[in-house]
């Protein structure tokens, strides 16, 4: 950590990112906008269908996660020699597998489930 070698920085642990107020304020301003818009979209029912609103708020959520990662958690390809970012990408891949995989598998199980007893009773009554 060559940028810490000056004597007055000795109280700082190695590897603490040198953050700036500008970084935090930019992250905060962006987050406020990216939070306010989805709340407004849902509370004021701006968009025509719930499906479009869902897609829109998911896009805003993903954008805000990136803003937090860069501005607040100081992710960049160089921190800790790249290991921070590599671990994050690995976890993101696992998360996508767990989330999409679970929803996919459980949705199919649900669709192909044998009808429960009371459903069959109802079907018989209808005949």
């Amino acid at each position, binding site marked *: 950590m060559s940028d810490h070698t000056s004597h007055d920085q000795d*109280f700082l*642990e190695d*590897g603490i990112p040198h*953050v700036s107020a500008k970084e935090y*304020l930019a992250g905060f301003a962006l987050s406020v906008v990216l*939070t306010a818009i989805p709340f407004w979209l849902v509370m004021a029912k701006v968009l025509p269908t719930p499906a479009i609103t869902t897609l829109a708020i998911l896009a805003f959520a993903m954008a805000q996660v990136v803003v937090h990662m860069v501005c*607040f*958690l100081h992710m960049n390809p160089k921190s800790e020699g790249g290991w921070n970012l590599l671990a994050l990408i690995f976890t993101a891949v696992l*998360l996508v597998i767990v989330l999409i995989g*679970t929803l996919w598998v459980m949705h199919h199980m649900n669709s192909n489930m044998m009808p429960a007893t009371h459903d069959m009773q109802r079907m018989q009554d209808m005949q």
Partner: protein
Amino acid sequence: MSESIALNHADGSPVFLDTEGKHHPENGTLLGFWIYLLSDLMVFGSLFATFGVLAHAYAAGPSGGDLFDLRLIAANTAILLLSSITYGFAMLAMLKRNVRATIGWLLVTGMLGLAFLAIEVYEFHHLVHLGAGPQRSAFLSAFFALVGTHGLHVLFGVVWLVVLCVQVGKWGLNRTTTRRIACLSMFWHFLDVVWIGVFTFVYLMGVL
């Protein structure tokens, strides 16, 4: 290529001298803590997946649209976001070695964390009072498990903040306390990232 010269101790075990001064990193705590946070993220990922599967399993009970008050959630989101920037100010004060400002901003962050928890406890109490407790339906079990786990993390974060304020007050800012402040900063911002998922998936999509 790093060159090293191998010597032997008296008992025959080797001694390694790194001639290029590329000794191993003195400290892996920040990276290790980041790895812990990512494993915690997997815990939340499983809870999110569970909630996603059970999100419509109302058991003829109330749905999110019947129960959630988005104004309350908007207030909580604002509080948590504000606490992220106040923690950022604590980090900036720490880099300038300003002990009093660091403790002050950490305390402000802790107060915001407590306000968040107070609103969440009020919300949970209100839901249980309505008969919409975790035992009512699979949807509500998954809801309380996910949001409750996030709330517990915030609670532990507040406890940690108080402990750090005491330590910084006692020992000032040194390598140990700055390392702990940097770790808690990651923890705190991480909780805000998880909250983005909670308010989007659980609350906003719940009332759609």
